[in-house]
């Protein structure tokens, strides 16, 4: 999954350098949401913050 997110951002960067700002922003949005959902998926364990 993280490989796909990296790939999406990489493509967004290449698209931006090519001059297509709108498409690049759209790809960034998709990859940001995917990254946020993936972080939520990994925040499943309980935090122990004191002894």
């Amino acid at each position: 999954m993280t490989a796909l997110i990296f790939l999406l951002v990489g493509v967004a960067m290449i698209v931006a350098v090519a001059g297509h700002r709108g498409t690049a922003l759209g790809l960034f949005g998709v990859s940001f949401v995917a990254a946020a959902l993936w972080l939520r998926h990994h925040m499943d364990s309980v935090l122990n913050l004191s002894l």
Partner: protein
Amino acid sequence: MTSLVRLGNAMGAAGIAVALLVAFGLQFGLKELPCPLCILQRVALVLCGFGFLLNLRFGAQPLHYGLSILAALFGVAAAGRQVLLHIVPGSGAYGSAIMGLHLYTWSLILFVAVVAGVALLMIMGGRPDHDRSDHQAAMRFRGIHRFAAYLLIAATLANALNSFAQCGPVECADNPAGYWVAKYLP
């Protein structure tokens, strides 16, 4: 002042690429595989760099800075979560310490530094580059600015490859012991 802001954005993009390459160096040098939260911190770094890259290519704009700040806050969430997982004495740590701090702590400091750096660039920036034509912005995208952007793209794609080699198409192990791709190699 505009050229100083452009240099700051190039340094931001190149700095993030260098941080990702240092992480690679430690991964291969110390033979310590990144955990899922560590990889998500690398994702956040790449997302931060995207805002700098847009500023280099299309001119400095508040929208681009906003994307970098959002990504840095995402990074603070991922790194902060990992710091909190290990904050109680005796709860262990993940990976080796570098200059007394673990990588996730350095990562948290880096994301706060990105927010501070973006704030400085916005203060120095003055008038946004909205009025420049795309042709003008494209003409100014050369030299060190172009190099910083390409370095960031290369670091991002290298991370995609590394992440696939380590985790495969789905999910990384919590405590990774080897590369997923090694199962399919002779």
